[in-house]
């Protein structure tokens, strides 16, 4: 029930309603809970509302960190199960 789906804000209209793109599908969601969201931002959508702005930099950073960790462990032979 706490599922929230990433969507990109396309335009912001009246009464904080915005058009967002969810994997190619256009939907109207309320931005009431994310007053700082701007056009182009990625948000998490839950029950017709954006509930958080997603930080793309952190997403990339996490993946980079995990990849680096993998490389360190590859060198230690862990990835090969040694």
């Amino acid at each position: 029930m706490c599922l929230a789906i990433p969507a990109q804000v396309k335009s912001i209209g009246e009464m904080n309603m915005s058009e967002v793109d969810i994997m190619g599908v256009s939907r109207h969601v309320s931005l009431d809970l994310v007053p700082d969201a701007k056009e182009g931002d990625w948000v998490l959508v839950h029950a017709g509302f954006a509930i958080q702005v997603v930080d793309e930099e952190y997403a990339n950073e996490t993946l980079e960190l995990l990849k680096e960790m993998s490389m360190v462990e590859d060198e230690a032979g862990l990835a090969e199960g040694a």
Partner: protein
Amino acid sequence: MDLSGFRDPQIARNLIDAINATAVEPVKFMEVCGTHTVAIAKHGLRDVMPESITLLSGPGCPVCVTSNADIDTAIEFARQPGVIVTTFGDMMKVPGSYSSLSNEKADGRDIRIVYSPLDALDIAERNPESQVVFIGVGFETTVPVIASAIEQAAARGIENFSVFSAHKTVPEALRALVNDPDVQIGGFILPGHVSTIIGLEPYRFLAEEYSVPSVITGFEPIDVLQGVYMLAKQVAEGRAEVEIAYTRAVPPAGNPAAIAKMDEVFEPTDAEWRGIGVIPATGLAIREQYARFDALKRVPVQPPETKETKGCQCGEVLRGVTLPFQCKLFAKSCTPEHPIGPCMVSSEGSCAAYYRYTDYGKSA
């Protein structure tokens, strides 16, 4: 945004190896979010854990933890003349003491499934002669959304809309779980989307008072593995902290605007959790200022005395004491097609997830 990296098999393999190398002592980690329950079962993550790690599902499915008394009350609303009940779809088939919303709908009551409480507002606007009651079930992820809908009803002058607040809040339920002598929880996989609202501060007591490690975790396979790895690392290093693995969606302070809306409309009250009992201050009542949007005040109802379903161990499953396939009814008389308890009804329930994605408890 490209999130495919969070399903990368090579990263997954490396994380699994890292978990294997880190988790030496036997330990139980519990997730408390239905979306995690599904993610772990669907991606087969239990099967790739080392023997030392047991992944338990806790009371993370809001529909499952809703008490029979609350379900009975929701049904009573539907039985009142002039009332339209609106609800998220997951609530429809959940059995109360004697019936379900789904049965009541079949009997001709006006019950409508909505995707958003804003849809319920629109229904109220189009049906001025009816009272539109929204069944409010959910954790902190959902509560600000409901609060915002109530504020919008006030702003738009929609006076025939009200909410039955059966919402619950997560952190104090975790205290009840760590105090439970029947389960020794070595760490919590904390719910990513509850935490995107409340941040990490409300969980601090887990580390400070109980020395239980916890990690706020996302929902892709890599997210879950990363959360488990960070927990295993805390255990191995003898640390107990609240850490955030799901950094892209969870700032340490959560979403202050959403918290403010929640506090504006709701105040803490005691709540009954299926399987756990009453936990102080984990429910949310509508504040006096918004009393005209409180269904309990707008439409007085007298639900019947509650009755529990015989043999159903949903309560024990929700506490992590019993695994779904250890219940005598599992996959026998209780299946997703003919569910007996809420843990099998909701697609996010532990029993439904085990049934759908694993072979446990099913004879060949």
